[in-house]
């Protein structure tokens, strides 16, 4: 889960290995806000797999790559 200057840098780093998923950091920021916003709340309850999958869906990460299994 690394950051790169651009997609070209991702491909150079992969050096022929299979790509995972690449998303712009604007989407990552949106995902992080939803994923982590309740993490230190006194009322926090464990997220179910379905809740976490829904967060991914809400930001448009619906490709099978993002299926939590």
């Amino acid at each position: 889960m690394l950051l790169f200057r651009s997609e070209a840098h991702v491909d150079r780093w992969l050096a022929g290995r299979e790509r995972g998923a690449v998303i712009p950091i604007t989407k990552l920021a949106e995902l992080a806000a939803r994923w982590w916003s309740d993490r230190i709340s006194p009322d926090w309850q464990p997220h179910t797999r379905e809740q976490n999958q829904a967060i991914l869906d809400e930001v448009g990460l619906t490709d099978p790559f993002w299926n939590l299994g």
Partner: protein
Amino acid sequence: MDAAELRVRRATYQRFVELGRAPSWGEVAEAVGVSEEEVRAAWRRLHDTHALVLDEAGEIRMLNPFAARPTDFRVDAGGRSWYANCAWDAFGVGAALHVDSEFDTHCADCGEALHVRVRGGQPDDDSFVFHVLVPAARWWNDIGFT
């Protein structure tokens, strides 16, 4: 996760944020009013359910989004400095604390220093990209590698 584990988890996060570092068993035990052994056992169960990540000695390694050890993701948020476990977590520190943040890391390819300021939840430079190598279903097979 039962009520006792939730109390230990909550206190662990509270102490982490108060101290700016991973708390010891004793520091959490004192906060919760239980023994160190009970905290160690609760941490082990929380580790097994992916609520936190312990190292080989049974101490906190990751309290996501916070990292207990220095990483290449150093975050300034809420007037303090933190380490995050990855780029996702680097955004997560500000999100969890509900404050603006900024972080320093490096392009994993060329090593160029990258600085990201996050204001109102959005980064100031939208040219960078985030790459995840491992499909989501396998993230916890080896969370350190992920």
